């Protein structure tokens, strides 16, 4: 417990150093674009791939489980849409990205720490936290909405494909289902949620990576720890944000 508090304090201090005005805006901007590319654009294929398949599987699962004649067929489209928009494209996608992006950030910073690259920055008088971490957090938080929207598109598209390929449900009914009782606020909610998650992923991974002591083994450990910790936090914040934004 005491250790958790200590870690949290360290984390807050690190964020304080991170969120200061960059030394050189040109450099910051270039770094941020690089991070968007490395953390965001490079995650596109995995997001598309997973979304497409989960969307398709969701449609099949729901279709197979609705046997009662009292429930209309378009429910399949409706449920697929709700699950994808509300939880899958934000929470589940971010849990997956916590693994990919989180470990990437933690191992990069950890390596820089153990090879004294961070010390080298400090000696030069560069605020290493600001220089290294801010572009990652800013880049990932800015780009996550793009990933989420793409994931929504392909998730629902996966279900569409299934409706088209199988005889379980007609395309027309699926289309009707995905437009049924549609509330655009759900998209806003998902996007906001994912931006919080993106902040958690990038900042927690940075914290673990930045504070590595030792060698390559500790870098690996830090990257594992960061994935575990950010996953737990994502789930906790999912509950909190959902209650705040949708609860009543």
């Amino acid at each position, binding site marked *: 417990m005491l250790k958790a508090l200590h870690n949290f304090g360290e984390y807050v201090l690190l964020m304080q150093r991170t969120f200061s005005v960059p*030394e*050189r805006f040109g*450099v910051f901007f270039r770094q941020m674009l690089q991070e968007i590319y490395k953390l965001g654009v490079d995650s596109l294929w995995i997001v598309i791939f997973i979304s497409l398949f989960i969307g398709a599987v969701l449609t099949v699962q729901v279709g197979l489980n609705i046997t009662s004649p009292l429930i209309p067929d378009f429910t399949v489209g409706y449920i697929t849409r709700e699950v994808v928009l509300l939880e899958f494209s934000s929470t589940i996608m971010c849990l997956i990205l916590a693994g990919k992006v989180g470990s990437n950030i933690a191992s990069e910073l950890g*390596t*820089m720490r153990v*090879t*004294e*690259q961070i*010390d*080298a920055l*400090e*000696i*030069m*008088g*560069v605020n290493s936290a600001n220089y290294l971490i801010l572009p990652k957090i800013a880049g990932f938080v800015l780009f996550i909405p793009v990933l989420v929207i793409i994931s929504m598109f392909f998730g629902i598209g996966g279900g569409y494909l299934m409706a088209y390929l199988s005889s379980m449900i007609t395309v027309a009914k699926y289309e009707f289902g995905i437009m049924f009782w549609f509330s655009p606020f759900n998209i806003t909610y998902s996007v906001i949620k994912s931006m919080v998650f993106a902040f958690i992923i990038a900042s927690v991974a940075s914290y673990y990576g930045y504070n590595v002591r030792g060698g390559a083994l500790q870098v690996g450990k830090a990257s594992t720890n960061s994935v575990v910790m950010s996953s737990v936090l994502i789930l906790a914040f999912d509950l909190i944000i959902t209650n705040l934004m949708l609860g009543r």
Partner: protein
Amino acid sequence: MIEVLNLYKSFENKTVLTDVSTVFEKGKTNLIIGRSGSGKTVLMKNLIGLMTPTSGEILYDRRSFSKMKKPELKNLRREMGMLFQGSALFDSMTVLDNVMFPLTMFTRDSYKERVNRAKFCLERVNLNDADDLYPAEISGGMMKRVAIARAIALNPDYLFCDEPNSGLDPKTAMLIDELVHDITKEYNMTTVINTHDMNSVMNIGEKIIFISGGRKAWEGTSAEIMSSTNKELNDFVFASDFFRRMKE
């Protein structure tokens, strides 16, 4: 000139440095020598501000390090260059970008001026055609050269080297030593070098301080070291057969 006055450093009830006082002189290569674990690295880290002394003072040309305010500290940082044990080059940047980095962060020079300065520094360390290579693609000796070029890019007044020739063959080690020595003379820098290599001591030891068990046990020049009667120092110096035979 860097003055160290009654420096103490302890970590959670373990004292590593006890009452160290000395002067590192301008325009000379000042060596800190001692057995492994004697506290050389800790002393250097205190000098450059990567660690804070438990008590005692460090004066950079009469300016007290501990009493400096942030802006002054920032200016002082720009007068310091450091060569890390593992070179600490930025993995994600080419050789040229590594050397240009301090210039980009801290000068208003145009791109062209920065490239010229970086190339000049690389030429100074006799590295001409590695500009576009990444640190992973060059040898350890070349990395040291790049690190020296980066350290002198901003024309520092103080140069720090942590074991500059560890991991190098004797011939390359000597070349690096001589390079550091020549640059010190050329720019009239205050250079502090951490080493346990007796070859360096004999070649470039203009002022030597010997640390034993966290205390300064001896100080003098390379000429004096051979005739010293200090028991601990003799144990250290004549640990190798070669030097023992040389003395006899």
